[in-house]
């Protein structure tokens, strides 16, 4: 057996298929993308790449649209973390305490998560429909708040928030499930001990649940951040050009438009590289945080 476990033929034979596919289709393209970002290419196959040094990076970092896209994605990240994690965990805590209907409630909040992003975004397109017939607008008129009706996706003041709401609607169910999975690992004796000590209400959430669920909470925050940094689908479908005055432009959409609409492949690659570096930094940083075991033993 020990001999077999060191047999190089077996090791290579089993390992190579995955290794080759992964290297050719994921790792090498990333390296090429970084190389592309130091070149200019018009998208025409016959025209060769032209080396331009750091020019693409200088261009994007002095471009107000790119800086705006960074600002938007930062706002997107901060608000998404502030909405998705607390709402998701609150839902999880509430549903966990119900004796009946747990499956129904879980389904009600989780289903948006598994629907295709296109379907979800097109659906919200109807909710944000710009005329007074739109669902949101007609609802506002019905309850007597007709002053608040908006062209939600057109108005630069509301468009980014409108997109964040769509992302939140789709994702809270996921954090709810993570919360419930975390809760199922906590033994009841802790809560009974807490009840004897008279801990209840908000105090119970603050002193018992949050410390006990600290690991899933940290993990959820990291997942929201890495997910939102590369957000594309929702933004692309609801505001294909990045909104009025670039109010909803995000780096991924800008990269897509620059490369596949305007054939500025060098600029596109530079933006792609920036997105990659941001995701990588967050991942490495988060690995460090997760590996620090600070959770309290009970």
């Amino acid at each position, binding site marked *: 057996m020990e001999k077999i476990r060191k047999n190089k033929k077996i090791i290579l034979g089993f390992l190579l298929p995955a290794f080759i596919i992964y290297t050719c289709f994921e790792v090498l*393209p990333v390296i090429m993308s970084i190389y592309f970002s130091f070149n200019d290419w018009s998208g025409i196959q016959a025209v060769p790449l032209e080396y331009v040094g750091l020019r693409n990076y200088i261009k994007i970092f002095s471009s107000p649209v790119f800086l705006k896209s960074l600002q938007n994605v930062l706002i997107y990240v901060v608000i998404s973390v502030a909405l998705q994690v607390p709402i998701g965990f609150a839902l999880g805590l*509430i549903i966990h305490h119900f004796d009946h209907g747990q499956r129904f409630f879980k389904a*009600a909040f989780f289903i948006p998560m598994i629907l295709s992003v296109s379907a979800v975004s097109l*659906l919200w397109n109807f909710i944000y429909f710009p005329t007074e017939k739109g669902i949101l607008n007609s*609802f506002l008129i019905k309850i007597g708040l007709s002053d608040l009706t908006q062209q939600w996706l057109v108005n630069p003041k509301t468009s980014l928030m409108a997109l964040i709401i769509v992302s939140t609607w789709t994702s809270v169910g996921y954090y709810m499930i993570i919360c419930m999975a975390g809760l199922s690992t906590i033994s009841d004796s802790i809560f009974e001990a807490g009840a004897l000590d008279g801990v209840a209400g908000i105090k119970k959430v603050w002193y018992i649940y949050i410390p006990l669920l600290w690991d899933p909470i940290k993990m959820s925050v990291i997942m929201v951040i890495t997910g939102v940094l590369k957000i594309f*689908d929702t933004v692309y479908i609801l505001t294909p050009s990045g909104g009025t005055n670039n109010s909803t432009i995000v780096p991924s959409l800008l990269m897509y438009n620059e490369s596949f609409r305007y054939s500025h492949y060098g600029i596109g690659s530079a933006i792609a590289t920036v997105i*990659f570096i941001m995701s990588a930094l967050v*991942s490495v940083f988060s690995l460090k945080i997760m590996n620090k075991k600070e959770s309290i033993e009970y």
Partner: protein
Amino acid sequence: MKVKGRKKKSIKSIIAFLLFLAFAVINVYPLVFSIFCSLKGNLEIFSSFTALPKHFLYENYITAWKVGNIGKYFLNTIILAAGTLFVSGFFGAMAAYILARFTFKFKTGIYLYFITGLMIPIQAVLIPLSYIFGKTGMTNNYYMLIMLYSAFCFPMTVLIMTGFMNNIPTELEEAMIIDGATIRQVFLKMILKLSLPGMISISVFNFIQVWNNLLFPLIFISDKTKGTISMGLLAFFGEYSTNYSASMAGICLTTIPVIIIYVLFQDKIENGLMSGAVKG
């Protein structure tokens, strides 16, 4: 003590329960509303988005199915997903088996090499790949797309499956080897079977990735008849942007099967998606 507390709280908790129920219903309302709209005429939609349909117009579904080619897109997506699940699942499990059980130089290095892929966003590979695919005429090629999707499924698959296989007792393998089985037989007949729960979870996770992916088909599929569901829905919506009821029917045609599958396999799907939560 517990019983007394319950009685006291009962009315309060019923009210809380009802409020929460209302909130849950509001949350699924957009889905209900899409079904209503898909059964209405265009004029009826615009007279009021929110009312119940007066007559059920099933024609919208027929339009979406025929003109929107939803059936074809569905099939295409299923083919791509099935191919990806097979390639990433089978080869991923093979690699995971080696990483979990064998000893060789650079083992940790290779494991980390796979895991590093988790931090690579798909945006980072689009431009070079479209360059290469364009140059070699591989656009619209499903084999290449399956390889591409699989490449992005490997990191999570290797991570989950290596963890899973580490927990399979080694004695079973040793017994099979002593009985004269080859390592290939051990892998196919025992390891894969015992890893089935993990394989199901990771397959659900990978399936959702393929199902939801919009960027890959948008860039690597130019032939309309080869489009995926997310892309097809967008195209249909673009062409029929004035026919709202048919668009809604198109949306429903893609969401309803997913909802039915979810209701049938709720626990498996939730667990599968949870496997994504171990990353970080």
